């Protein structure tokens, strides 16, 4: 493989720094006093429900919108500052951008699409050709130089978009929902390819998505945003799954159950239609006499000896898993079981079962 350019940065300079960014569209405030530091040479996911402002953050970094307040710095250099009246236009910020709808120019060939940023920088023909070849290798599209975008599939167009972003800037990319429009199999494949690309080149990638699955699979660090634009947690996939910072993060990943609990006489009871004894010895910290128990469906197991009894209301066989809806007195919860054997015990509707809970977490109970 030709030599890829790996750009080393001093470990103390953040790649991107956002300070006190405020963005409003008319009356509606999307980002309020938002600050974030992004380290170089990692894939950082910015994840959140729609409307939380994640795209706005990306656009502010790129220069497509002007925040009403705050500063944007890339590699320590100020790109935007409201106070100092600095606003570097997008074409001078040197960021590679990959758009959700690929935005590959239909009137230019694959080669010309990828070469465009280099032409804008007035590089020599030989240098351009070399870098375009390089980029094509990175995305496995060598040989497609003369193709027109209309002759390519969605996945191939996406790769061209990535290659073009790489020639624009091989050390900093922003990707906005780049794989949403692809089918399931291709999505998996692209995630693997993006990861391998990043490892080869050491690029910093900001990956914007609402798809938690993609973020968990791909990113070194994930920034989870609450609907109002504030940061709920920043952490690796392991941290987010095993140590969610708050109820929103816990709820955001996959499916979850919340059961109200109450602490009396040093024991924990389920606070439902009737009080059910859950734990006689408390090891964890429980926030307050009244709290919420958060537990994932996969962490509830059937245990005939458990004092906690419930009735199965629905059971669905999905192949690798059983999905159950189970009723406790006063609420219905979800239970999931991996199918580990053909002879695994299967519970049908109306059956009475005992439940055991593993890896439970306690959160504050908000008064309705």
């Amino acid at each position: 493989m030709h030599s890829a350019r790996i750009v080393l940065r001093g470990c103390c300079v953040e790649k991107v720094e956002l300070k006190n960014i405020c963005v409003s569209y008319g009356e509606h405030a999307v980002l309020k006093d938002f600050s974030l530091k992004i380290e170089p040479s990692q894939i950082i996911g910015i994840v959140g429900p729609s409307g939380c402002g994640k795209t706005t953050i990306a656009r502010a970094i790129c220069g497509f919108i002007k925040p009403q307040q705050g500063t944007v710095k890339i590699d320590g250099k100020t790109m935007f500052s409201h106070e100092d009246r600095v606003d570097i236009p997008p074409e001078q910020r040197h960021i590679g951008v990959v758009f959700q709808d690929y935005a590959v120019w239909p009137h230019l060939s694959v080669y010309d699409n990828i070469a465009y940023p280099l032409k804008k920088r007035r590089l020599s023909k030989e240098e351009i050709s070399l870098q375009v070849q390089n980029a094509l290798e990175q995305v496995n599209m060598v040989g497609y130089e003369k193709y027109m975008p209309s002759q390519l599939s969605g996945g191939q167009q996406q790769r061209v978009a990535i290659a073009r972003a790489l020639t624009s800037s091989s050390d900093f990319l922003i990707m906005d929902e780049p794989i949403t429009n692809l089918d399931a199999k291709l999505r998996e494949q692209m995630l693997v390819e993006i990861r391998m690309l990043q490892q080869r080149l050491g690029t910093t990638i900001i990956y914007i998505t609402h798809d938690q699955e993609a973020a968990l699979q791909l990113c070194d660090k994930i920034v989870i945003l609450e609907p109002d634009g504030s940061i709920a947690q920043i952490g690796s996939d392991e941290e987010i799954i095993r140590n969610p910072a708050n109820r929103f993060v816990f709820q955001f990943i996959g499916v979850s159950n919340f059961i109200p609990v109450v602490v009396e006489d040093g024991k924990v009871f389920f606070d439902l239609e009737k009080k059910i004894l859950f734990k006689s010895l408390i090891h964890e910290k429980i926030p307050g006499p009244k709290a919420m128990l958060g537990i994932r469906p996969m962490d509830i197991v059937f245990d005939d000896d458990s004092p906690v009894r419930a009735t199965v209301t629905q059971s669905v066989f999905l192949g690798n898993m059983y999905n159950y809806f189970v009723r406790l007195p006063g609420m219905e919860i979800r239970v999931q079981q991996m199918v580990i054997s053909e002879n695994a015990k299967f519970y049908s509707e109306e059956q009475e079962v005992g439940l055991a809970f593993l890896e439970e977490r306690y959160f504050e109970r908000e008064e309705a």
Partner: protein
Amino acid sequence: MDQIVLEHVTKSFTTKSLGTVVAVKDFNLSVKKGECFSFLGPSGCGKTTTLRMIAGFEDLSEGSIYLDGRLVSDKKKNIYLPPEKRKLGMVFQAFAVWPHLNVYDNVAFPLKVKKYSNSEIKKRVELTLHHINLDGLEKAYPSDLSGGQQQRIALARAIVVNPDVMLLDEPLSNLDPHLRESMRFEIKRLQKEFGFTIIFVTHDQAEAMALSDRMLVMDMGNIQQIGTPQELYHKPVNQFVYGFLGQSNFTDVVIKDGRVFLKEDESNLLFAGTSLDLKGDYVMATRPNAIDLNRHDGYKTTILKRTSRTEFMEYMVSVGKGSIIVQTPHRNFFRVGDQCFIKIKEPKWYKPESKDIEEERKRRNTI
């Protein structure tokens, strides 16, 4: 009682670009009254064509179709009952609700065709709308409503004449993912309440397994296997069915004297003690969820990669020079590089598939 019977049904097409294609080959099936039955397969496998033949939108090239004991399609005897006389309910993939009629008129249409009285129509339509949770929307037009609501209009319209059989063509694929589960429950509930037989077509194995009493898997016009979802998942007759019904690992192995070795390195003992009397080259098929990953005993392996999924953790573990995938709940946590052990449970053994079959499948996918 057999509600729907297909005997030796075959359908061929001739196109200019591809010549003659046999879309459905010697299809034999009996669906019992009240069953929920699905046709599962990749695109181009012939499942939708078969459904359309049952509905009467396509002619047969060979064979016969019986509905409720009555012969409705037979090429040899030149019998063809048009769709409007087959008394079926059908829901199409893109809903096909009529944009120029409001919800009430959409649902009332089948009754108007049969010349029911206005008062009878009103009663039935309102009852059906109530069952489907569309009360209050009678005067709305489809373009004002969401995809899920349009789906329900299509369902209501099919149900309002109390058909014995409902045909559903990819009913959930045009809905948002989070809507799909609730729609699945809706359809099941409606079946319980109204008691009709359902045949539905899908390419989504989870959907098929969740909804069906029995199902079949089709590939390139041929039925591969018929049975309950559990039967198909746990006892697939070939590698295609195995792979189609869920995530799988396929490992090339050599079996000698009841012991299983990796094909790439015949000294590497993977597994001892198959009770089956097999010898030679085989493909070992395993489910990622049915492999026990632990720190105590089994086949020695290293964690190569960890991928977090929303519902479980996925680990790629080394097997010889290759790897297999293991899925396990989040609470079973390992790090990349950890030395572990795997115990393979209930593997299935298949003879390796020939290259020709792979090529033909690729060709059909482009149609």
